[in-house]
């Protein structure tokens, strides 16, 4: 893909810029769709119609929202720490966006095919927490402060089970490279990790061969539980309902971004939605075959149109990502908010023991098989 771009554009610099900006274009488009999805789905689930007056069925409502946010006054509270206050939204968004660098959007497009892919995504994603803390602290507002502290406590605790869940997949595949993990799930829906992983030997992108057979079905319940654990932790990490206690509109007036307005608020909003998509994409990469199609091959490969395959792969990944974002929205309008003690109970007493237990079992099984 990079060489293709270079051959079209001729210059390396321009190629790099475009190459880096592609995910941004995608994330922005996605955010618009997700915002619309959020308002519409919430409305439908509450037997309402949602926005109906901007465009047919209100489909350009998110654009109107963006326009509104652009016009809004950009307020910096006089008693805030100006430097940190203004920096925080960018740090938060940077954290979410930087993680997209290692996300393989298709077999041909990946910002950086890192051997430490999962590790990088996790590490960089955590920078967002710094932004949240900066925002909460510098706002000089007790609600923001509480929100930030809650959010940090929550994200730090839930990163453990989330990382552990992904570690289980890593134990199985023996690689942290996201592209490799996807390749390991090629060949059809039954080879996805959520269904127990590959059922026949596969050669990873790095050239290593992964031994597998139908005996892998023993992994099915383990990986299924792992997926549920990862998804729950991911929900908590993105501060989504039922884990939205850091934002908690009804008690904390939106938590760490209480004092933000206009485009700086929009940056937080974008970061949240980008994060949602990121964890959804990581879930689909680790458990649902990433850009692999459920039937194991692509129409492009079948009819012999080579350029079609990457496009299809991208569409599959986007579809899976959107699906999990949809489930997040669905959960948001289903469940009430947890209490802080329930949140901690769930993390430290349920998710962490279970993830460690499953990791042990999977490690043992991988060793003997």
């Amino acid at each position, binding site marked *: 893909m990079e060489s293709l771009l270079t051959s079209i554009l001729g210059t390396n610099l321009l190629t790099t810029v475009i190459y880096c900006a592609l995910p941004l274009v995608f994330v922005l488009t996605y955010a618009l769709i997700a915002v619309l999805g959020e308002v519409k789905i919430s409305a*439908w689930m509450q037997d309402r*119609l949602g926005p109906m007056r901007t465009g047919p069925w209100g489909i350009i409502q998110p654009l109107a929202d963006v326009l509104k946010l652009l016009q809004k006054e950009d307020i910096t509270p006089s008693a805030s720490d100006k430097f940190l206050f203004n920096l925080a939204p960018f740090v938060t968004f940077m954290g979410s966006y930087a993680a997209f660098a290692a996300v393989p959007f298709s077999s041909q497009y990946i910002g950086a095919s890192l051997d430490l892919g999962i590790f990088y995504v996790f590490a960089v994603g955590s920078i967002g927490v710094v932004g949240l803390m900066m925002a909460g602290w510098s706002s000089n507002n007790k609600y923001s402060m509480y929100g930030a502290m809650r959010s940090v406590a929550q994200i730090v605790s839930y990163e453990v089970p989330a990382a552990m869940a992904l570690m289980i997949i890593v134990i199985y595949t023996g690689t942290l490279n996201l592209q490799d993990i996807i390749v390991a799930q090629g060949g059809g829906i039954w080879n996805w990790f959520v269904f127990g992983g590959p059922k026949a030997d596969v050669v990873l992108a790095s050239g290593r061969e992964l031994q597998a057979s139908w005996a892998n079905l023993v992994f099915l319940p383990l990986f299924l539980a792992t997926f549920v654990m990862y998804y729950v932790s991911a929900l908590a990490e993105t501060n989504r309902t039922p884990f939205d206690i850091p934002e908690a509109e009804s008690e904390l007036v939106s938590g760490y971004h209480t004092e933000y307005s206009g485009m700086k608020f929009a940056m937080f909003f974008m970061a949240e939605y980008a994060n949602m998509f990121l964890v959804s994409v990581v879930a689909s990469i680790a458990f649902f075959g990433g850009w692999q199609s459920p039937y194991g091959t692509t129409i492009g490969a079948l009819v012999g149109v080579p350029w079609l395959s990457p496009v299809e792969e991208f569409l599959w990944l986007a579809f899976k990502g959107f699906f999990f974002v949809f489930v997040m929205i669905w959960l948001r309008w289903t*469940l009430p908010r947890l209490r802080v003690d329930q949140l901690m109970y769930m993390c430290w007493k349920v998710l962490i023991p279970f993830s460690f237990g499953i990791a042990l079992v999977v490690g043992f099984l991988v060793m003997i098989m």
Partner: protein
Amino acid sequence: MSGYFTDIKDGIWTVLVGMTITWKHMFVKKVTIQYPDVKRELPDRVRNRLYVNMDDCIGCDQCAKACPVNCITIETLKALPTDDLGSTSTGNKKRLWMPVFDIDIAKCCYCGLCVFPCPTECIEMTDVFEFSEYHRKDLVYHFGTMTPEEITVKRAEVEEYQREQDAKKAAAAAAAAAAKKAEADAAAAAKASEAANIPPDTTAPVS
């Protein structure tokens, strides 16, 4: 310990139950009424904007007195004996001009208390509720039917009439006073003539 596992099982199960419920609700018929395009039918006896039928209003001020927030302002002028204001549809004769009949609907609390005392049933609550304005002062409704010129003319006429009446009254009073004085004088004279054995003067005014 068994409680721990049943909790987890219940946790997962109830989330799934909740999700089925919300999923089903995505497809039920929506309750939203698309307001400006579709309007809900209002009940028969809704209390919304007031309307005053000035043809029937006799200016009795009952509604203004009943209003708990004083949003009705009525000024009246007595009609001259020569004026004919006609009568209401209920047959009451109208006796007052009304230069001012204002209802400040912004203050109105839609209690409907002004409606009941009206003797001619000319103030009533309609079902109109879409009357927002950009300025609060535009919410003061002027029901008075007289133009400013008419009001000035009428005021002057009434004042003139009043002055005439006052003058007449003053004249009458003066006359009365004069009569009294004359009577008193006559009485005194009579007494005097009686004393002088002179018959009383019958030409002196008596009343």
